């Protein structure tokens, strides 16, 4: 190894180590709190003297009044995320097919309106959305959150699916039409199988978006038995003497599924989403 390679490697390490510390510090701190007994959680050590899984046992056993409905809230998060994923997939695939393959009249306008929705900052849309959900009588109903997240997830999903389906050769459709395929047969037998990879990406995107959402969930739901786990975590902040180590243990549990899903579907996510996110 020449001197030159050694300095190059050293320079790379000089970037890599700070990047590692910067990235992992908050996550490590989360983990550290979660495995620390209550007394030593605040000692500031980089590793607890007596690491323990007791916090998780307390969380799973719902042994604190902040955690009274832990399992129910976890279930709420799950059911809402899955519903948003499924509904987004349905709505967006239908719309993308209609716009891209059937060239429906007005499709371009709808696409532009969808893009416009996508670009309104979500925190700005939250205020009128909250008021409107009140008018519709949906406040404190989980459908409010599902429909709100569907509204937020759909535009980008339609756009990504439309980009992907514009790339499919039109000869396919023409051949199917000449063979007399009805629009629905075209959709079911030609379109869906070819779009499967993009649909996996979009389903995952919508699911994660809904699972991770805080603002809309906290605005639209308030009953302890209806809120998602994310909102429940935020509620710990209401008191100064909350059991922070339990909060962090719950937070870790809440963070694991999306991380696992992300790494499982990374292939689809990175290919399907980043390519679509910014078209230069």
């Amino acid at each position: 190894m020449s001197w030159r390679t050694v300095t190059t490697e050293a320079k790379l390490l000089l970037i890599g180590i700070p990047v590692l510390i910067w990235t992992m510090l908050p996550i490590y701190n989360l983990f550290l709190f979660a495995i620390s007994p209550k007394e030593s959680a605040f000692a500031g050590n980089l590793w607890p003297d007596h690491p323990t899984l007791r916090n998780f046992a307390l969380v799973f056993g719902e042994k604190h009044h902040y955690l009274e409905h832990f399992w129910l809230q976890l279930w709420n998060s799950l059911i809402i995320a899955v519903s948003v994923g499924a509904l987004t997939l349905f709505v967006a695939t239908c719309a993308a097919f209609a716009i891209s393959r059937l060239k429906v009249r007005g499709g371009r306008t709808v696409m532009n309106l969808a893009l416009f929705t996508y670009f309104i900052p979500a925190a700005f849309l939250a205020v009128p959305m909250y008021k409107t959900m009140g008018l519709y009588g949906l406040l404190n109903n989980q459908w409010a959150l599902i429909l709100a997240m569907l509204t937020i997830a759909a535009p980008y999903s339609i756009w990504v699916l439309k980009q992907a389906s514009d790339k499919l050769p039109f000869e396919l459709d023409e051949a199917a039409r000449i063979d007399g395929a009805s629009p629905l047969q075209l959709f079911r037998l030609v379109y869906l199988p070819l779009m499967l990879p993009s649909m996996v990406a979009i389903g995952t995107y919508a699911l994660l978006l809904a699972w991770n959402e805080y603002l809309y969930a906290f605005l639209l739901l308030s009953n302890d038995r209806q809120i998602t786990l994310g909102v429940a975590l935020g509620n710990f902040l209401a008191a100064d003497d909350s059991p922070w180590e339990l909060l962090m243990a719950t937070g870790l549990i809440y963070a694991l599924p999306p991380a696992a899903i992300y790494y499982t579907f990374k292939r689809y996510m990175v290919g399907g989403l980043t390519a679509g996110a910014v078209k230069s």
Partner: protein
Amino acid sequence: MSTLVLPRAEPALPVGPARKRMSPYQKWGMILLVPYVLILIVFVLYPVGYGLWLARHPESYVKLVDDPIFARSIVNTLVFLIVGINLKMVVALFLSGFFVQARTWIKWLSLLFILPWAVPSIPTILSVRFMLNPEWGVINHLIFKFTGTDGPNWLNDPTIALAMAILMHIWKSLPFWTLILIAGRMAIPAEHYEAAAVDGATKWQKFMYITWPSMRTLYLTSLILSMIWTLGDFNSVYLLTGGGPADLTHVLATLGIRYLRLDQVDLSMAAIVCALPLVLPLVFFMMKRLSR
């Protein structure tokens, strides 16, 4: 059960302008578009119209301008956008160059590097909030260990608290933008760099004459999109500082929600309407870019 129908007499041309009689393809296109159009009307167009109607009173704007928190929020938002985003994108551009280096350990590091983006923001932001606690947070422990002095009271000083919120935002979204810029760098043909190496170009020259020209458009688009998203970043500020101390670290995204929680919806909508001159040009820029 599917029955095959005979080919239609009309030519099978799906593309092209609307025809007078509605073909089954048009009919089904409209049916399939209905679910999304309904969502658009019920949950976007109507709420937006209703919100603008709520913001119609001039008095709301007078009250808003009289509120010192509003002025402070505008300044904070601009600092967030100008300092935060530029810092984030420059670092992302730099790191994208680091992550394209072919090393096994860099590949592993890139898997970890994506974590902030892959996990939900609530637990990690709360974790940072605890790290910054002046009495028992790990940061001040480390500062005390190494320097023997007490660290600052991070979230109790409006300037430091805002800086921390900006860093929080960068921590969360840096991986995403780095990924985007890595994709941009990978698209540059390797031959360009090889040719430049043969000509004896320096690293800086390679960047200026090969990398930057081919990434300029992507970088600009990312910058604008990132601005729009940052305007809507509620979590980084709300969960870290709660807008405090003394409501001095609010940005427009949290201010609107603050008024809403105080039952002052007209002020909330007025604050959002005041942000529109900033948001709409960015939105139209992005729409033009994406709808090509």
